């Protein structure tokens, strides 16, 4: 995968809700090669404050444009939110290794790279996308790519769990529903959907005997009516894709282990160079330290050492 540095024109920039913003950048060179789970690094201002670039997950991409969904959390994102359409940003991308999934042939043909592990495991299996807060950002791009696979017989095969602190911070519900995904919501304070952590909701869905709380597999013949939707053995054909805060990903890793469901998790980390040179953004793995920006940001849940 070729990494490029470009001046990308801001096509649009707007607040969507609360502290959340969306910015669309015209960058055909980077957009055309971008894969779900990859990210870009942006120099927000030309001066020394903030000095370093900022990494952002790719929220959506087509052949010409990149869309970034972000929250204003500090000086860098605050300055980004004030940028006006028509201005240019210095962008490097696409960076890192994205999610592993079976990609549609037409998409694959237009791109030089192939996924790291083209196992085909995700083929007709159930896919569960779990987002914690801002972690939803890379998962919409993934869902968009997943639904256009030739083998995705039924779009309802994709279950999206969106976790947030409260209902004001629940993002992208419409977008996922539009793709035909089944969407379930959890909030910490119960102001929308399930009350509790999104990983608790996932556990309930994985262990329940009541198919009505699960999405309908009977439609495409995976399960008979009344059959328990998932158990440890059937779970093998399920894949979890998750992005969110570290404690949530730790819980996902435990669930992955306990129910024997492979999980891919996208880690967030402060980065200085974002291209693998500074060795700053490392995470402990079973094979020693790995760079989140280079070997990641997507890792297999069972290779990360959480502490």
């Amino acid at each position, binding site marked *: 995968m*070729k*990494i*490029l*540095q470009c001046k990308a024109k801001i096509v649009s920039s707007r607040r969507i809700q609360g502290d959340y913003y969306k910015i669309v950048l015209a960058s055909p060179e980077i957009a055309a090669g971008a894969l779900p789970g990859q990210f870009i690094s942006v*120099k927000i201002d030309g001066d*020394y*404050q*903030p*000095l*370093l*670039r900022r990494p952002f997950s790719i929220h959506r991409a087509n052949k010409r444009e990149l869309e970034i969904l972000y929250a204003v959390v500090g000086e860098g994102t605050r300055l980004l939110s004030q940028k006006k359409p028509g201005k240019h940003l*210095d962008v*490097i991308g696409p960076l890192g290794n994205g999610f592993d999934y079976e990609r549609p042939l037409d998409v694959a043909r237009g791109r030089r790279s192939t996924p790291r592990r083209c196992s085909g495991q995700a083929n007709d299996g159930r896919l569960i996308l779990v987002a914690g807060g801002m972690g939803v950002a890379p998962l919409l791009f993934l869902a968009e790519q997943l639904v256009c696979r030739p083998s995705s017989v039924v779009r309802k095969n994709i279950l999206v769990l969106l976790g947030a602190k409260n209902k004001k911070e629940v993002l992208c519900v419409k977008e996922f529903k539009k793709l035909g995904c089944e969407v379930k919501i959890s909030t910490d304070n119960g102001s929308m959907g399930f009350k509790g952590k999104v990983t608790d909701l996932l556990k309930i869905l994985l262990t329940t005997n009541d198919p009505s709380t699960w999405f309908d597999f009977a439609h495409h013949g995976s399960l008979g009516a009344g059959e328990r939707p998932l158990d440890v053995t059937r779970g093998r054909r399920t894949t979890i894709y998750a992005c969110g805060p570290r404690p949530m990903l730790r819980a996902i890793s435990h669930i992955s282990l306990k129910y024997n469901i492979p999980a891919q998790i996208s880690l967030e*980390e*402060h*980065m*200085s*160079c*974002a*291209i*693998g*040179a*500074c*060795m*700053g*953004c*490392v*995470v*402990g793995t079973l094979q*020693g*330290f790995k760079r989140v920006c*280079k070997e990641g940001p997507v890792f297999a849940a069972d290779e990360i050492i959480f502490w």
Partner: protein
Amino acid sequence: MSPRLNIKIGRLELKNPVMVASGTFGYGEEFKGLLDLKKLGAIVTKTITLNPRQGNPAPRTCETPAGMLNSIGLENPGLEKFITEKLPVLNKTGVPVIVSIASEGGREEFVELAAGLDRLKEVAAVELNISCPNIIHGNKARAKLIAQDAQATYETVKAVRKVTRKTLITKLSPNVTDISEIALAAERGGSDALSLINTLVGMSIDVKTRKPKIAVATGGLSGPAVRPIAVRMVWEVYKQVKIPIIGMGGIMDTASALEFILAGASAISVGTANFVNPKAAIEIIAGIKEYLIKNKISDIRRLIGSLKI
């Protein structure tokens, strides 16, 4: 006519005086495609040690006002793997490769490393990193760096000098009372050139969690925040030593690179700026050339130490 940009550091001929600093450029491969590597004056590698090192726990870096702290802890694959896996890739660029070396123990490791590199024609020069602030921490906090002791600096340089004919560069620490004293010791020990400065030990605290922003508490400060200190140190040392100085510390653009040259540096290294703009070093080469033309200076060497004071 195009001004002369080439300079000589020890026996090392550089087509221009702009290098990339150790630890900020990996082993070159990460930057492939982001800049024309062939244009660089030299590449200084991430420091290697004799044995592989895992480095320090995360978080290892954090942003600070006009700068950043890092405490990577010299993560590297070790000498053997560097020679077999990293050096051939670096060599393909055709740019002189300066190998930065450090010791986890005493002087003997420096000697062994330098001797191991001496026979390799792919190695243009060796930089002695006697000033990394990130491998001493915890209960050894009061231990000194070699670069904080003139006698130890002299002895280390002298011992390495005996085993290598390569151009020998010694990288000095700014975390000292008098950097000139250390510089003179390195010169006396037989160093062909001096690199200054390494990072300044700093600390940053997250007031919400009451934890240091760097896992091992302290780290090395770099970026434009340290530049005035670096320029001052180059100027001080330039007045004392006869060997060439490679200046570095917060060089972001042509103007900041020229500051170092005017203060007495024969060459400069771009460090933190590589993270911000991978093309920074290339832009600086073009910028220096433009400055020389504009000021009708035919040779970069006439600019070195030409500070009006």
